[in-house]
């Protein structure tokens, strides 16, 4: 790590760079402007912007500059490099690496444009490439939007191939043999007569070789690592208690801190009285931080205990003060003044509704949700001798640098962000609050490393939440399915709220309000989806699958109601409506896996739902049983299409985890507000899914899509509607509000 730090501070260089006793490939001179981003669609995958291989006396290291939150991204990204470099995964160290704009994520904004993932027109392709430009200019090293694999697929393989080419050239010089007579194998270059030179032995010779500007990537048929299930690099440590999360950082003479800030989110602190806290055992100091106060102590628990005794006078927030008022704000947004988007308006919906003899309609509601990853927010900061080090689990390390510069006034070069493993995130660690606080505490304790740890109560009540929202639909249904659909969706703008906190202006409509609703590949003659924006400043943010998390429930409950209105089979109706072949196939797959159509035992019911989100068609079937009037989730089936599967066993893990995450929220997830404060403070009130509630889950991975896609989120959106639709099938009860346990009990 120390060597890596040196490179970061000094310079990133094109091509290869000599480092103490070794070589680094693909470094970028990050102080210089990145090359003209408008040429990006021509040169995407250029080796110069595709870090990252270091070969030195410690061996071969691959930099996988995306946050490991549990999705296995570091293993999959390293596998892309390893495949082309021709090394085994077990042979390499995998590092997250430093924060740098050179590691910007080009693909993350692809979801933010009004072109459906199924749209393969040249305009859609141009737009997808075009949003790589702001992504590059923002230089956001960001993990999110299920975009890591799509973003890395070309550039990390190219990075491996370029490094391999240079090592072959170095071996050719050493052996006096033509390069094309050499091959590589497991981290060595091998000559025709069987001489093998390790990559490490070639590292210093390689520094004088100019990398090739064009490299050929292996055809898929020759892959040895990609496409096959790998043992994740982080699993042994995570199974033995030796994995180091942010909360586990330990530094010499480190002090522990905890914080309380205004539970009226975003509002000021008028005053506080910490006289009791200051006298408590273990307490070193109490400091005011923005709209709250932090206790610094010799042990986290002393800090927790003391911070709980501080008396605060809080200012009130301006957003609605209770849950009912928040719901009312949503209801009142179904109005032309609040209209945000209408990306879909096929046929003539008004005429179809006017001329219909009967209309199917419904109104749906979802609550706010917390991310509640199991590792509470924490960060460690150490300000000394004109430099700052920060250790934190973060999805945007480059933003952490920016915040650190703002707070300390130090130059970027004096700041090092160490991105740690994350005990879950689900979108929570896209925020900077806990990092900013840790730096501010450390700035008041210069010389002493400070680890700031939030209590669970602070975490649950100071999240930026999945927005609450509503849907209203009207449909005209014939014997063959819907002929008209008018779907109206109202919710807050995640984009405005979240980007606002990052200081990035977010103009125009917010596609998240209608995500996975406006762009679904159903062929309906008259089909309109309108988004309405709720305007108040209760803090909201991306929650695993973002707008798809509520819109999947709205859209797919609606489709179920449409099918049942005319006695149509909800699976067959969806299959018949599909205009996108990979989407049709995931439905056919879950139908087959679940023996859809076969009779179930008395008291059982099956529900199906489909969502195309983040470019991935996902279909899920849930089977429930009613036991003593309560719902038991018996079995779940999921089929997803990721285009090309990088690591099947890890994809399966993400789908089953995403599905359970969706089921957990659907069953009992709810955040309520009273007097401006979030009421649920811990897991006794915010009830997450328990072991006995998880169904058996069967996953099938299809590869009919035209592009490689990420899978961290797409498993989540169909879970809630599949469950609600299964409950309808088993009981005849149509539940139009989440969480479902407001309306029916669960085993």
């Amino acid at each position: 790590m120390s060597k890596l730090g040196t490179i970061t501070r000094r310079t990133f260089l094109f091509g290869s760079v000599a480092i103490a006793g070794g070589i680094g490939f693909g470094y970028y001179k990050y102080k210089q402007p990145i090359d003209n981003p408008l040429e990006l669609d021509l040169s995407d995958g250029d080796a110069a912007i595709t870090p990252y291989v270091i070969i030195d006396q410690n061996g071969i290291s691959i930099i996988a500059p995306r946050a490991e939150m549990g999705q296995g991204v570091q293993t999959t990204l390293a596998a892309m490099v390893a495949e082309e470099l021709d090394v085994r995964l077990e042979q390499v160290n995998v590092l997250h690496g430093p924060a740098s704009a050179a590691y910007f994520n080009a693909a993350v904004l692809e979801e933010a444009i009004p072109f459906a993932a199924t749209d393969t027109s040249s305009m859609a392709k141009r737009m997808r490439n075009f949003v790589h430009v702001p992504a590059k200019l923002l230089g956001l090293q960001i993990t999110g939007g299920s975009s890591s694999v799509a973003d890395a697929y070309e550039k990390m393989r190219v990075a491996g191939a370029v490094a391999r080419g240079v090592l072959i050239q170095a071996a050719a010089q050493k052996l006096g043999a033509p390069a094309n007579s050499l091959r590589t194998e497991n981290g060595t270059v091998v000559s025709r007569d069987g001489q093998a030179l390790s990559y490490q032995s070639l590292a210093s010779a390689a520094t004088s070789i100019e990398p090739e500007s064009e490299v050929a990537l292996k055809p898929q048929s020759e892959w040895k690592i990609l496409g096959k299930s790998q043992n994740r690099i982080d699993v042994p440590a995570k199974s033995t208690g030796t994995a180091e999360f942010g909360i586990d950082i330990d530094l010499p003479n480190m002090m522990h801190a905890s914080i309380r800030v205004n539970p009226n989110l975003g509002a000021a602190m008028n005053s506080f009285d910490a006289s009791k806290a200051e006298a408590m055992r273990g307490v070193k100091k109490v400091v005011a931080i923005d709209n709250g106060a932090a206790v610094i102590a010799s042990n986290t628990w002393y800090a927790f205990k003391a911070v709980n005794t501080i008396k605060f006078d809080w200012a009130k927030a301006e957003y609605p003060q209770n849950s009912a008022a928040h719901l009312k704000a949503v209801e009142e947004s179904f109005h032309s003044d609040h209209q945000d988007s209408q990306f879909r308006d096929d046929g003539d919906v008004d005429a179809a509704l006017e001329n219909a003899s009967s209309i199917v309609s419904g109104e749906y509601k979802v609550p706010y949700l917390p991310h509640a990853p199991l590792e509470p927010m924490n960060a460690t900061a150490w300000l000394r001798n004109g430099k700052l080090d920060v250790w934190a689990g973060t999805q945007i390390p480059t933003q952490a640098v920016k915040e650190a510069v703002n707070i300390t006034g130090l130059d970027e070069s004096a700041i090092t962000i160490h991105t740690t493993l994350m005990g879950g995130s689900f979108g929570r660690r896209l925020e900077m609050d806990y990092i900013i606080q840790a730096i501010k505490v450390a700035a008041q304790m210069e010389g002493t490393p400070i680890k700031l740890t939030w209590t669970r109560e602070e975490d649950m009540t100071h999240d930026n939440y999945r927005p609450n929202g509503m849907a209203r639909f009207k449909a005209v249904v014939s014997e063959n399915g819907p002929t008209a659909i008018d779907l109206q969706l109202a919710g807050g703008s995640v984009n405005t709220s979240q980007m606002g906190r990052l200081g990035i202006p977010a103009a125009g409509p917010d596609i998240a309000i209608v995500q996975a609703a406006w762009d679904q590949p159903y062929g309906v003659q008259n089909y309109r989806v309108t988004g309405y924006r709720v305007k108040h400043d209760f803090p909201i943010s991306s929650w695993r699958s973002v707008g798809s998390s509520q819109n999947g429930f709205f859209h797919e409950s609606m489709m179920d109601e449409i099918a049942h209105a005319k006695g149509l089979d909800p699976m067959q109706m969806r299959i018949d409506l599909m205009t996108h072949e990979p989407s049709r196939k995931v439905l056919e797959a879950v139908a087959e896996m679940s023996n859809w159509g076969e009779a179930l035992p008395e008291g059982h019911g099956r529900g199906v739902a489909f969502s195309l989100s983040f470019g991935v068609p996902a279909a899920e079937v849930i089977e429930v049983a009613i036991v003593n009037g309560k719902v038991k989730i018996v079995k779940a089936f999921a089929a997803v299409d990721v285009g090309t599967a990088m690591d099947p066993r890890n994809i399966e893990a993400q789908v089953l985890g995403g599905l359970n995450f969706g089921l957990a929220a659907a069953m009992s997830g709810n955040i309520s507000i009273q007097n401006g404060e979030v009421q649920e403070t811990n897991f006794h009130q915010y009830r997450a899914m328990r072991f006995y509630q998880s169904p058996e889950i069967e996953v099938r991975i299809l590869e009919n899509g035209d592009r490689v896609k990420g899978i961290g989120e797409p498993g989540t959106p169909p879970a809630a509607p599949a469950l609600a639709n299964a409950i309808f099938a088993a009981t005849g009860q149509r539940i139009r509000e989440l969480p479902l346990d407001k309306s029916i009990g669960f085993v």
Partner: protein
Amino acid sequence: MKINVNGQEHEVDVAADMPLLWVLRDELNIKGPKFGCGIAQCRACTVHLNGQPIPSCSFPISAVGGAEITTIEGLGKPDAMSLVQQAWVDHQVAQCGYCQPGQIMSASALLNKNSNPSDEEIDTAMSANLCRCGTYPRIRAAVKSAAKNIREIELTPAIESEIDNQSEVSS
């Protein structure tokens, strides 16, 4: 105060009501047990007290006395894992991994008492532990395969008695 963790005696000077978790983590730098909720609702902090699984976040140090505390570090190491830990790796259970030390401690306590648990018994033993990543299906599979591997060892009495004989001789 004296405390015995993973077979080692430690002397600590802390408030009597400090939860065991914070003695382990911040005083002894034993970081396997995790903080998740502080009120025994998630069990990421699970350790064994004389073999029984307890939520260390809600167990005051003064109540530990001379009991033997075992943390995940006491079960096995990356290069010498316990059968339960190995099953966790074989099934690639962990995603974020934060809850898994607690899950493994709960599973180990169950399997130490009962190496052939029914699904219901597994439900009872494992339902106090939260996993936000939703890895439950793989946890169940790992518990079952660890149980099978433990039973196989139990079914080889010859080796076991040999080990017993050796330890008797050496002691």
